[in-house]
């Protein structure tokens, strides 16, 4: 019936009138770091909850390791979840929190204490095992939530925006940490996030969600370089999308085309295009120096706006910088632009 380790087939979920998940098919491979990326309300968290069993699908099937779990309760599914705000039990010590799942599985006391302490140790928080959750920092709680799920050795770990509440630096540390744990434990991770950079950095594959459907599934490179829809092109990174008349003017056909800002070079307005190059001429209406890069906003004669990002490889006064008001040519290699089918 299915090819994936975790498979969803024709899954629909309605909340009263709202069609939260629309006829969704999804296959996650064993041992994969799979991200579900999308804006809030796009259905990604609902899909995660359908896999965990916290929500029941209105129709369709959910299969985990060729077992149909559609009608199973969460406690009977071979998955565990790391929650957005960690969901640690506030009245239990860290160790009791981590032991909770072992206790419900009737693991003998000595054995479960041993396993729990090992799990706490693996996230480097042994010294806090007798504390209560509110005595820990956000990052520490995050690690404990992870340990609490991993101690149960799930086949699939579901993570619902687990890094959302952390500050930037901690977040990046945890991204590396999560990736390491996933590699070492060989567990399938299904990771929900609205942060495209986070998804790109960690994932083997990304599913881009919009309005209850998957717009595209692919490796980070595929979804960035070959977006299949306008939504994917604009949700991942910055994009310059030409369609209709603007596309016809440049490419000779009105199919939608995307070119990424970092692939655009700026040249004097009267420069001739080389073969294999495309470009437009326009006026810089804004030039923003933001450290590593400078972002130019260019407006063409026909009113189309183009964003170009240039890496500041030299000191600002050592290169010929363009200023607001300059007329420039925005040029890119023709094979760097990608046709968006829909």
């Amino acid at each position, binding site marked *: 019936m299915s090819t994936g380790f975790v498979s969803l087939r024709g899954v629909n979920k309605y909340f009263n009138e709202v069609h939260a998940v629309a006829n969704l098919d999804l296959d996650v491979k064993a041992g994969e770091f799979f991200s579900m990326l999308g804006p809030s309300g796009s259905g990604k968290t609902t899909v995660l909850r359908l896999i965990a*069993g*916290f929500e029941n699908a209105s129709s369709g099937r959910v299969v985990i390791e060729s077992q149909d779990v559609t009608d199973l309760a*969460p*406690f009977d599914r071979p998955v565990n*979840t790391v929650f957005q*705000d960690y969901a640690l*039990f506030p009245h*239990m010590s860290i160790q009791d929190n981590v032991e909770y*799942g072992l206790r419900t599985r009737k693991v003998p006391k000595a054995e479960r204490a041993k396993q729990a302490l090992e799990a706490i140790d693996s996230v480097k928080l042994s010294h806090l095992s007798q504390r209560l959750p509110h005595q820990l920092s956000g990052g520490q709680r995050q690690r404990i939530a992870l340990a609490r799920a991993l101690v149960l050795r799930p086949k699939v770990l579901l993570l619902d925006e687990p890094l959302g509440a952390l500050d930037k630096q901690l977040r990046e540390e945890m991204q590396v940490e999560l990736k390491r744990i996933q590699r070492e434990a060989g567990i399938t991770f299904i990771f929900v996030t609205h942060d495209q950079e986070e998804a790109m950095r960690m994932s083997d594959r990304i599913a881009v969600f919009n309005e209850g459907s998957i717009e595209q599934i692919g490796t980070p490179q595929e979804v960035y370089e070959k977006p299949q829809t306008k939504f994917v092109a604009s949700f991942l990174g910055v994009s310059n999308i030409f369609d209709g008349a603007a596309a016809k003017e440049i490419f000779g056909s009105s199919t939608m085309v995307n070119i990424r800002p970092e692939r655009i070079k700026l040249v004097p307005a009267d420069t001739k295009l080389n073969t294999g190059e495309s470009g437009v001429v326009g006026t810089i209406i804004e030039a923003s120096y933001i450290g590593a890069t400078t972002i130019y906003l260019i407006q063409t004669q026909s009113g189309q706006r183009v964003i170009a990002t240039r890496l500041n490889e030299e000191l600002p006064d050592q290169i010929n910088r363009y200023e607001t008001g300059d007329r420039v040519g925005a040029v890119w290699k023709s094979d760097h632009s990608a046709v968006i089918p829909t």
Partner: protein
Amino acid sequence: MSTTITKAGNRPLSAYLYKRAKLRLFSLLALPMFWIVGVYILSLFLLLVTAFWFVDPFTSKVIVGFTLDNFVSIFTVPAYISTSIRTLLIALAVTGLSVLFAVPLGIYMAKIAKPWVRNALAVAITLPLWAGYLVKIIAMRLVFTEEGFFNWALAPFGLSGPTFSIPIVILTLTYLWFPYMALPVFTAIRQIPPNLFDASSDMGAKGFTTIYRVVMPLIVPAIIAGSVFTFSLSLGDYLAAKFTGGSTQMIGSIIAANINLNPPVAAAFSMVPIAFVVIYLMVARRTGSLERM
């Protein structure tokens, strides 16, 4: 500018008080302190004093003096001892029964019910508070009386309903005091983050385990708060026993019987429920559950 000057000029009293913190504190607390100390504490204190007086056996007049006989009788007269124990057990049963009803209801109301069902139930729970206390006792009496609902409903099966007895007193008192348990329990369950329920089932716990290991520990403060009402109000009640208990005697019955005949004994006996509540709170405190209130 001119408005500022008018303001200062128009509020001489406030301006005066503003500079005198102690006087402000006094005017804030004068009324409540009069109530608490002057009426509340004083009357309890006078009651305590009365408990050491005694009654002249011939004239039945209260003699002002000092005797411990009234307190000794509480611990020596077998009928008094058994009544105290009976009352204690009834109050504990009422509290237990209230918790048993309130927890599942609270979980349903707080986490499952649609908003309109939740509101309807909240009204249903508080509805008994709208009716008078005596009205509710009479209502229970009518349901369980010899020609009452249960006997009528069970008659076709050749059965008779329960008669006025201790279990009916427990039911009546539960009926009276249940809202005081249900509301704090509901509020406490409502404050439990929903994902704790998800997390619990995610880690393999079925419904009962989640209630036992997650919900109950988190709502202990609310249960204690509610039980202070169900427990102490049950300890002090005597009308439920009088109208629905048949021959059942509670501490209140003895107090009521002695209030004219022997006020010192009644006063001494009034200390028993107070002592029970104090002991109850000390035990609750020892378990550490009050610290999280």
